[in-house]
């Protein structure tokens, strides 16, 4: 029995009508939170990413975490606020909705950090 947690690399691509990505999410010790900032608990997409990657699901509305601990943030933002905050902090960001770069923080939203309209079928293990 190994004490070591098993992490896997997952690839997340944009869903239909989405933008950005694909992102490669690779949880590591100390940086393995799948940070759900969606309200109403862990979003099913965050749960799926956690299941496939071995990362830890984390509810951003319940507890606090440092950005350095976040492997990927999962949001359900319609395009103004949350859409830009995590990319601005260089945190990989998955949006459930089909948002595109927009809003006051638009310049931070780039395809290497952000992907949108993600459904379960858009997430796959790559190693």
């Amino acid at each position, binding site marked *: 029995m190994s004490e070591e947690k098993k992490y896997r690399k997952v690839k997340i691509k944009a869903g239909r009508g989405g933008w950005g990505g694909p992102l490669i999410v690779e949880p590591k010790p100390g940086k393995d939170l799948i940070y759900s*900032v969606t309200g109403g608990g862990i979003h099913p997409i965050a749960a799926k990413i956690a299941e496939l990657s071995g990362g830890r699901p984390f509810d951003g509305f319940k507890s606090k975490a440092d*950005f350095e601990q976040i492997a990927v943030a999962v949001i*359900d933002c*319609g395009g103004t*606020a949350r859409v830009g*905050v995590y990319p601005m902090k260089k945190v990989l960001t998955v949006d459930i909705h089909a948002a595109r770069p927009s809003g*006051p*923080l638009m310049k931070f939203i780039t395809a290497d950090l952000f992907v949108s309209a993600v459904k379960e079928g858009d997430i796959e293990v790559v190693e």
Partner: protein
Amino acid sequence: MNTVRQPTPIYEISITAIGPLVEEFTEAGVWVFFRDDAPEELAEFALLHHAEAPREPIAAGQVIEIDGQRYAVTGVGDIANKNIRELGHMVLKANGATEPELPGEVCIEARQLPQPSIGTTLRVWKEASEVC
């Protein structure tokens, strides 16, 4: 005895905290509200409050009153009411759009928003005639 029924707003927010980036957002005609349990990184550009969920959905044709100023609601995005109900998260944009550019927005008349302060109130009224 006659009782006069006082109209009650659909939604009433009193601002409890203002993030450091709110001034810039206000100049861009955008207010972002979150309930005060929102993560710190969102509070940076947000107006915080701890209002109850709206009594009914916010819709075009209603009136938003901010410290006595009236703004007609021109358009409401598809997920705006869900965000408001679940997270106290409202994105208010003073751009007069009838078709919001983004699904999370509540659009109102294109007039300058005031710089908010702690205690600034925002009320949503179903009918313009209800605004006290």
